[in-house]
């Protein structure tokens, strides 16, 4: 069921301790800052967070990590020049890290949404990120077995929604939004604009409304 919600606080109110939360964005593009701030405020803790990075600077996901709400990060690129909050928690042994090659991260999220129980990919074969994983020779290459990443909740940012919950994005801010929306049991999208049903061209919809549960307009 789709709901249009007035505030980011109400939108994230149902997120429970121990949840797996996917957060869209690559760098700052597509990062749903307002929803992340609301998640911080709502107090949910013991979270597993799926994001390409592990927070930057003193905002968004970085603050969630700083405040000790994140038990485990699943990401491809935690270390950045300004990932000091993650770095500190990691060196202190206070956060778990599952490091995933970015393409495996994307494909595993996509697999969860598409009902795929697992797949073989050449990425990572023979590297420490494939240690202990099943391998198989397929299509002339050694490949590694990877499994889907499911989530309880996805927090994403889109440009516009219509009355049916269909979404369109803007430029490279699209990134993980569409696949996270499909992979999570409950998807919350912050958008800049809500159009009436019929306000989006059906040929250009990127995320069909079937994947969206809550929409909140953020000015």
């Amino acid at each position, binding site marked *: *069921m*789709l709901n249009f919600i007035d505030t980011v606080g109400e939108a994230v109110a149902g997120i429970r301790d121990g949840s797996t939360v996917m957060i869209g964005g690559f760098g700052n593009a597509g990062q749903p800052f307002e929803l992340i701030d609301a998640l911080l405020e709502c107090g949910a803790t013991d979270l597993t967070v799926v994001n390409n990075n592990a927070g930057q600077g003193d905002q968004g996901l970085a603050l969630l990590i700083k405040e000790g709400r994140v038990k485990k990060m699943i990401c491809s690129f935690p270390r950045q020049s300004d990932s000091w909050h993650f770095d500190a928690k990691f060196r202190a042994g206070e956060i778990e890290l599952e490091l995933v090659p970015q393409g495996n991260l994307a494909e595993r999220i*996509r697999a*969860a*949404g*598409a*009902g*795929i129980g697992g797949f073989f990919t050449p990425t990572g074969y023979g590297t420490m990120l494939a240690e202990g994983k099943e391998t198989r020779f397929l299509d002339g290459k050694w490949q590694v077995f990877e499994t889907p990443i499911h989530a309880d909740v996805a927090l994403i940012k889109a440009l516009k929604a*219509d*009355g*049916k919950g*269909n979404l369109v994005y803007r430029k490279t801010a699209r990134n993980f939004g569409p696949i996270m929306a*499909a992979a999570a049991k409950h998807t919350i999208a912050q958008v800049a604009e809500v159009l009436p*049903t*019929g306000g*989006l061209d*059906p*040929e250009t*919809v990127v995320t*069909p*409304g*079937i*994947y969206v549960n809550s929409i909140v307009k953020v000015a």
Partner: protein
Amino acid sequence: MSSQTNIQTSETPLGRDDLARLVARDIKPGSFVNLGIGQPTLVSNYLEPEQNITLHTENGMLGMGPEAVGDQIDEDLINAGKIPVTELPGASYFHHADSFAIMRGGHLDICVLGAFQVSATGDLANWHTGAPDAIPAVGGAMDLATGAKDVFVMMTLLTRDGVSKLVEACTYPLTGIGCVTRVYTDKAVFLTGPDGVRVRETFGCTLEELRRLVPVPLEPAP
């Protein structure tokens, strides 16, 4: 009153349209639904706008509208049965892998399918008679049967020869295992699952009469 009479809700068996109306009424507001080819398509005639149901068609669309007529006919806008259809406001188009990801990823609330046979534990046989000279064709039936949250079957209870299509175990080749949750027939609505078959209501017969037609244990639904 005995349980037999308690659950009879109609004096006569239901016709196809009455059955379609009943299925339509049972679909929860806001649901995303795929209606299979044939009898299930009739359900769309009885969905009320207030229900806010979104129809999916496997060939790449959400927000499918009624069958196209006259000038509406557009060869680029068809349903899974290759019938020209229309587009409702709020529709979206996507390619085949994305369309089946919707089905296979468990995102459809309900699909309604026809069947040759349904077993007491919800196995479905609806794609192949198994006849040696038959040319098999499966389409999206297995994806729907396996992927939708609820699989409703619509069928006549008996074959033309009077044999029950609700069976202990399917003799026709299977479409999916343990996937059917409800069976809507002209004579009764059955709830199927791992615990066996419960009868929600009967049409034009008592539960006792139904038990004589169907070779599986039947209990009234709680």
